């Protein structure tokens, strides 16, 4: 505590010195020549959390004896992306193949000039039809450059508690609950019904979790295609806000902040009956609800408003790379359907490649905890996702530091109107 200021100032000082020293690191178009077939090449690959590439890297090195890969793994996404932006700014220090999470993609697209266009330097087999079109298109800059190959996705479904549904007299079979999750209106109406029948138990975990999914389904998000803030006049956002805050007023929210210790405890405490569920959330639920709740959770192939995506990543090749061609080849190989299926088997990352979605290894994947064929179910949900929403610079930040805190404030007792104003003010401040 006592040395924070020195530390901060020092960090600032170092960062700025680095900035000052490399202020000329702008990306030129001069691509270095590709190495010969037998020339030794050292490549670095940077990922965060779990991509499931551990076994694939030695395999690639066996196939290409002249290439040596160093894999840098970071535990948490937040610090990883902060570091990424800093090194992007500094003009050096990024890996040849750098992973970027979908939530941070808008900030990276904004600096598209610092990345290679993979349609130009990538191998021919990494063609657009390899990926789901919405996944592929989301990594295009405004001027049409493709800066990332899709790795995995987080198609959305609904998870719910069978036992709690039963206690409140609601249907429990995955097919029979689908109508409840047909639209946001039906979802919140069912929630109000559940609250009254269960004598005041909460329907969902947190307002922000639903609101984010709702905003993601709109044609445009917080930032318009002109890169200007579009919150105040955006009827879609306003409607989503009204629906969610009404549900909070009716007692449908458990008022838990996602991923906080209290939220984690909420799974064990039976704090809520439904949950927005991207594919990777199943692992989180299993871990937090624990073996004692096995068989109580279920998942169904329905999502209010059609479908949606939350999460997943891309592999990019920054212009800083000394071997862009080799790096692009590695990224293309890792994101090919065959390899992504292996990553899926290793770590459960859900593939974004069209071919992988029909792979028997994926379709046959079941999860006893939820009593569902999860592979097939999420493959179906992945196909329901509409075209990607344009995300301008600062979009992710507005979600994290404007809308989510404002909804939390409403859950803590602020009026819906004051909360809306707080979100608008914070969003303005962020997008200045």
């Amino acid at each position, binding site marked *: 505590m006592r040395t924070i200021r020195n530390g901060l100032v020092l960090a600032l000082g170092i960062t700025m010195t680095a*900035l000052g020293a490399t*202020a000329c690191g702008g990306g030129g178009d001069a691509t270095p020549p590709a190495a010969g077939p037998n020339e030794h090449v050292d490549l670095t690959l940077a990922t965060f959390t779990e991509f499931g590439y551990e076994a694939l890297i030695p395999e690639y090195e066996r196939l290409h004896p002249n290439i040596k890969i160093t894999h840098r793994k970071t535990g948490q996404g937040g610090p990883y992306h902060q570091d990424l932006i800093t090194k992007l*700014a500094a003009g050096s220090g990024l890996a040849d193949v750098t992973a970027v999470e979908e939530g941070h993609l808008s900030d990276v697209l904004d600096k598209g000039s610092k990345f290679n266009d993979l349609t130009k330097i990538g191998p021919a087999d990494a063609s657009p039809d390899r990926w789901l079109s919405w996944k592929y298109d989301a990594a295009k800059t405004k001027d049409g450059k493709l800066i990332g190959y899709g790795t995995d996705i987080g198609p959305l479904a609904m998870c719910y508690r069978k036992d709690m549904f039963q206690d409140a007299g609601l249907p429990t079979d995955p097919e029979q609950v689908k109508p409840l999750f047909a639209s946001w209106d039906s979802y919140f109406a069912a929630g109000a019904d559940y609250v009254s029948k269960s004598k005041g138990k909460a329907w969902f975990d947190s307002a922000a979790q639903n609101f984010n999914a709702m905003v993601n389904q709109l044609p445009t998000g917080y930032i318009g295609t002109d890169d200007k803030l579009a919150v105040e006049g955006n009827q879609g956002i306003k409607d989503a806000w009204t629906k969610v805050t009404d549900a909070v007023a009716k007692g449908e929210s458990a008022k838990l902040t996602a991923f906080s210790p*209290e939220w984690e405890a909420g799974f064990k405490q039976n704090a809520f009956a439904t949950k927005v569920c991207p594919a990777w959330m199943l692992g989180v639920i299993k871990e937090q609800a624990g073996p004692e709740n096995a068989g109580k959770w279920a998942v169904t192939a329905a999502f209010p408003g059609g479908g949606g995506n939350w999460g997943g990543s891309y592999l990019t090749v920054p212009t800083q790379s000394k071997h862009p061609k080799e790096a692009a080849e590695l990224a293309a190989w890792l994101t090919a359907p065959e390899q992504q299926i292996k990553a899926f088997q290793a770590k459960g990352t859900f593939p974004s490649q069209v071919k992988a979605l029909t792979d028997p290894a994926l379709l046959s994947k079941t999860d006893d905890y939820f009593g569902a064929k999860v592979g097939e179910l999420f493959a179906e949900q992945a196909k329901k996702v509409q075209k990607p929403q344009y995300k301008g610079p600062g979009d992710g930040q507005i979600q994290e*530091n404007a809308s989510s805190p*404002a909804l939390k404030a409403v859950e803590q007792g602020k009026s819906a109107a004051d909360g809306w104003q707080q979100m608008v003010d914070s969003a303005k401040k962020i997008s200045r």
Partner: protein
Amino acid sequence: MTVIDKIAPEGSKAGERTSPRPTFRHKLSRWDVKVSPYLYIAPFFIVFGIVGLFPLLYTAYVSLFKWEAGDDNPVFIGFDNFKELFADSQFWNALTNTISIFLLSSIPQLIIAMLLAALLGSRLRGATGWRVGILLPYAASLVSIGIIFANLFGPKYGLINDVLQLIGLDPVDWQASRFGSHVAIAIMVNWRWTGYNALIVLAAMQAIPKELHEAALIDGAGMWRRFTAVTLPLLKPTLIFVTITSTIGGLQIFTEPKLFDAMPGSNNGGSSNQFQTVTLYLYQSAFENYNLGYASAIAWVLFVIIVIIALVNFLLTGRLARTPAVKKK
């Protein structure tokens, strides 16, 4: 150092020398006296210059620019960052929170530290054990303390609210209410720092000569009178030191509020910035909004505020501990 007995001390007029002209060796030893001390203290100042003074000045330089991280050509804007800062309600909110948390933590902390020191100074069984015990919270990792306390203060499933409900009180939403969150954070700070300060005060108390207390006893002074007339004035330098270090630390509070936020990794300090401190806002400006110029301006304003408050403290503490009983010129 060489022993020098021929040289008159500087500024003394009495020792006018009538010895022969100084030899080279003589000159050398004279330089030795003049220059050596500076060489001995130089390492600190050189290191401080590199890691303290230079960043300080460079931060001041950066604060005059609109400098986004990744900007190849930052724009010089003079004092615009400061103008914007003084009109920024979020900054004033953060400053109010910081001062509120600082007062809620520092004042009880110092009072309790004094009392603890007095207790530890009395005759105890296993005195060393107690003294080590009091320092244990300081040895624990700050991050784990933050995580544990954030759990204890959880609004729904936190132990503290469970206890409150057990004794028939209403639970408090520690993270939602502004004052509640400040109290919770102050408790975290106190838990860690009280023992540390108590030990420093204890060391100073032990250094007070027994004779003074005995003399006061013979003069018929009671316990309280002895404390105010003997202990306090002699503790003055230590109290000033403890107050100023607490001030510097307290106004830079960062880790506790960051970990107290329910949203993992958030720098917002609560849903409506109800416990965002100045350093948290600084960090958010620099590393979340990548607005380095603005963050540097915040850093400098914070620096000036800390200097001012430390000076005020210095004067106040001096006042408090001054009594006519023991006056040394």
